[in-house]
């Protein structure tokens, strides 16, 4: 049950994630063929899972703790990815197909003559970081401020988050926007001078992703375990009551919303570093829904569950798109059905059935996104 203290395990998960990522990263640097070595394929794959886990954590923060069912979080993930992608694209420099140091290939291709203003400075890594975190944060801030201020909630909020990511997807598909249209950004060479295809770079990136995920987990745990987390849960369950206590739910929610967007953006940036491509498909509403499903599978409001869910579902996807390519969608569909029907608290709920103090005989899971409305 989603009592407030069901995410104690996050500390151990964080430790585990960091250790595993480091071990894998190190093992990938062993000579290929030795018994313990790990192929670059596995490294990239793990990097992807961990980036997705960041997105799942972001979703868990707003859905599990603030009760905001977001159907548009992939937008922040994708914006983070685009921000990093812009830097990586500029880092290609004159090594593109057309050998044009000033313009990315796709702009040459479409006969652009000048870099659009919003690309200025993107060749500096720091500017890239500002773009990749700042843009999603500002967007989240603006959107959240408008939405929470006017008390948009529940399905209404869900649908407009979906509309947001859908609008962004349509916009980014347009070649006129200057982000490479359908193709997106790809063909990256290096980051801060390190060759992106080098095994050592890959290993470092995986380790970095692991460490960042661990740190975010710890941070989220501290945040949710603290006074703010309690207020958030209070807002989630009984928003109107908190107002009479003098809290401003819109501000409380806005903070977690922006923090969550930042985490998602971070995930996106790490994702693009390891996957090497970002395109408007990342904005697809289906991606956001999937992220919610990872959290549901893992166990909502548990932090650890988000990580488990993201890794588990994506591992399953990797596995079954390879061994049962014609039938894997049945499996995926059935998984969502089974989770909601039989595992309302996800894998974490299952784990917690292992005997534990029975003092948490509390209310049934509160799924009412509104909190109550008096």
């Amino acid at each position, binding site marked *: 049950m989603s*009592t407030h203290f069901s995410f104690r395990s996050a500390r151990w998960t964080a430790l585990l994630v960091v250790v595993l990522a480091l071990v894998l990263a190190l093992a990938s640097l062993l000579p290929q063929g030795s018994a313990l070595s790990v192929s670059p394929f596995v490294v990239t794959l793990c990097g992807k899972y961990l980036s997705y886990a960041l997105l799942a954590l972001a979703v868990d923060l707003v859905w599990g703790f603030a009760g905001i069912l977001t159907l548009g979080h992939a937008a922040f993930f994708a914006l983070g990815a685009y921000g990093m992608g812009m830097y990586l694209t500029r880092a290609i420099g004159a090594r593109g197909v057309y050998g044009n140091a000033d313009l990315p290939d796709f702009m040459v291709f479409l006969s652009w003559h000048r870099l659009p203003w919003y690309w200025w400075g993107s060749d500096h890594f720091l500017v890239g970081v500002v773009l990749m975190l700042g843009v999603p944060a500002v967007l989240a801030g603006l959107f959240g401020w408008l939405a929470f201020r006017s008390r948009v909630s529940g399905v209404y909020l869900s649908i407009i988050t979906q509309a947001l990511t859908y609008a962004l997807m349509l916009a980014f598909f347009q070649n006129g926007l200057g982000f490479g249209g359908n193709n997106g950004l790809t063909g990256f060479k290096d980051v801060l001078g390190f060759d992106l295809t080098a095994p050592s770079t890959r290993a470092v990136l995986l380790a970095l992703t692991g460490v960042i995920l661990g740190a975010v987990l710890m941070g989220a745990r501290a945040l949710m375990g603290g006074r703010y987390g*309690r207020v958030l849960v209070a807002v989630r369950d*009984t928003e109107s009551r908190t*107002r*009479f206590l*003098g809290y401003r739910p819109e*501000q409380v929610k806005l903070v977690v919303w922006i923090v969550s967007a930042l985490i998602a953006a971070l995930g996106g940036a790490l994702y693009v570093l390891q996957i090497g491509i970002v395109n408007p498909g990342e904005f697809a509403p289906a991606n956001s829904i999937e992220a919610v499903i990872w959290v549901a599978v893992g166990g909502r409001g548990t932090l650890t569950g988000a990580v488990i869910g993201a890794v588990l579902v994506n591992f399953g996807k990797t596995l079954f798109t390879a061994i049962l390519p014609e039938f894997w969608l049945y499996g995926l569909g059935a998984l969502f059905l089974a989770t909601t029907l039989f595992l309302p608290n996800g894998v974490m709920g299952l784990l917690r059935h292992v005997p534990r103090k029975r003092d948490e*005989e509390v209310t049934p899971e509160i799924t009412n996104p509104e909190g109550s409305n008096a």
Partner: protein
Amino acid sequence: MTTAALLDLRDVSVSFDGFRAINGLSLTLAPGEMRAIVGPNGAGKTTMMDIITGKTRPDTGSVTFRGHDLTRLDEPAIAELGIGRKFQKPTVFEALSVWDNLLLALKGLRRPHRLLFARLTPDEIRRIEGLLATIRLGAESTRAAGGLSHGQKQWLEIGMLLAQEPDLLLVDEPVAGMTDAETAETAGLLREINRTRSVVVVEHDMDFVRALDVTVTVLHEGAVLAEGPLDTVSNDPRVIEVYLGR
């Protein structure tokens, strides 16, 4: 006299979809006063509370609290001015422990960016423990509030109200569903509270109102029907008509 009033409602009206819930209501509360509001269902008691706490905006009329115009403020601002409210149906944060419920209600931190890095102070611990003793839930402090009995929830909510340290408490049917003993204890508690704060109690239970022994305001169809000591009021023919008529 008006300047001395703590809470002053003047000629307040509000209607929903053409239904006049409050109709030219005027009410004045002196500092330190305890007032009982009675009235049949639909008399506008809860709507009046909603107006005072900012949940509902009146169509006309003025509402002032220590000189502040409440009609311009929203719920959190009014709460911070020092008006606390207890709902008819006990409304506590069920997923949080009793302790946490009180912690969140404690007067003090409200801004999210301060909350992010807030640490529990020894003073807060002391205050919470004091409250736990007052509301007799010391043994339950780590339990999730959702698991409390109905009466315990009522008490917890009163505790939360006290934690806010408001100047004015609005208490909506505090003894609904309580045993006689609990009712008597609650009356005692409210009188205790009234020593330092003003209180408005909305209640049906006449025994309880009698036990409070305060000025009674009778609401009917959104307006004040009668006001005065309980005995005077209960002999008013109009009140008898409203309560017993038809």
